């Protein structure tokens, strides 16, 4: 199963340990995390499910292309890393 890792900076505000979840896209993997941890959702995506402006998601070291739909594919042994973008300062 893909592993989802969140920036340590986010842990200051909301509990978000690493998680191994089912999912073939970034969206489905993150949805699986959010289902178990609903409060986390609003810290990563906006009210329409789009990646927040100053957040970035890497899949196996590459930034996702589909920031709105989060449809980028994830391998079963892939790693999704959720972090702050430098654009926010």
């Amino acid at each position: 199963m893909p592993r989802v890792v969140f920036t340590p900076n986010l842990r200051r505000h909301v509990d978000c340990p690493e998680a191994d979840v089912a999912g073939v896209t970034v969206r489905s993997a993150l949805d699986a995390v959010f289902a178990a941890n609903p409060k986390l959702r609003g810290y990563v995506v906006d009210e329409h499910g789009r990646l927040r402006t100053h957040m970035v998601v890497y899949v196996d070291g590459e930034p996702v292309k589909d920031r709105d739909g989060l449809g980028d594919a994830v391998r079963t042994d892939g790693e999704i890393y959720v972090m702050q973008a430098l654009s926010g300062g």
Partner: protein
Amino acid sequence: MSERLHVATHKGVFTVDRGPSGWAVSKVDFLGDNATMLLQDPRDRTLYVALDHGHFGVKLHRSDDEGSTWTEVAVPTYPEFTEADEAKQAEAGEFGARRDFSKLGEFWELTPGGPDQPGFLWAGTIPGGLFYSADRGDSWQLVESLWHRDDRWQWFGGGKDSPGIHSVAVHPRNSSHVTVAISCGGVWVTEDGGETWNHRTSGMTADYMPPDKADEPNGQDPHRLVSCPSRPESLWVQHHCGIYRSTDAGENWQQVTEAGPSTFGFAVVTHPDDGDTAWFVPGVKDECRVPVDGRFVVTRTRDGGNTFDTLTNGLPQTHAYDVVYRHALDVDRTGNRLAMGSTTGNLWVTENGGDDWTTVSTHLPMVHCVRFGA
């Protein structure tokens, strides 16, 4: 008199208590976080703090025990930006980025509903949203009657990139009568709890607009609107272009042209029992937002704006560049005690209506909101 102050700053929320040796910070919550708005509901003493985490979005926290413990509650959510919205935006010439109109940018006002509406809150937001919660922030509903007006597309940002609602005044004896002020979008009133809305800007002039548009209701930039609790038809507005007064609930506005060193500013409060008394914190003008001649003063009228006192005792009079934002000046229930915090982290209190000011701190983070404890 209130013996406690709540101060929301760019780097946390400070509780300031009045002890035997004066006012002092007693507690810090959310240290390091940008607290943009704060409310202590006088009906049930619940505390609310709005945070803007930047990367992680806008959040609202609630406390039922004076800030000992906090619970994160819901925030307002905006409808998706549609193709129809895009067409209306283009027609109006609005220049905001389309995505800015579909997501919460900032809590800019939190106001309790009326005494007959326990737990009911109003929230003004950027971009240009008015929301209400009937359950102390557990859920929020958009006031669609205002949001879906076609002339909303004539609103525009003033200082901020997008228009925002920063003032909500609820009539103390009629909770359905609510007055709202928008930068930039004018002054609006509902008398049926938000079903219908009407402009209340007659007499206001915006000198930054083309001359033939200077009186346009949607083009007015009230920086802050307050009403007198015991005389709610008495309203004051610190406008981008000066000070305005209404004695008929906003039906007509009279401009105050002389008020000490300047009529430009952001903050205004009015005496809870005397609608003719109001305080302002002036700056030079819109393109130079600092105190006149580096002298930081408060101006006060006690006669409805005919004359003003310029209050300086205890305030810095050389090379002071403090600005007091629109929510960073408050008056307590007696009308004698006021407090204000500045963009450069100064916090002052007066016990005698502004005649003398005491410095509480000179090194807080930038102050966004000051509220006396309920």
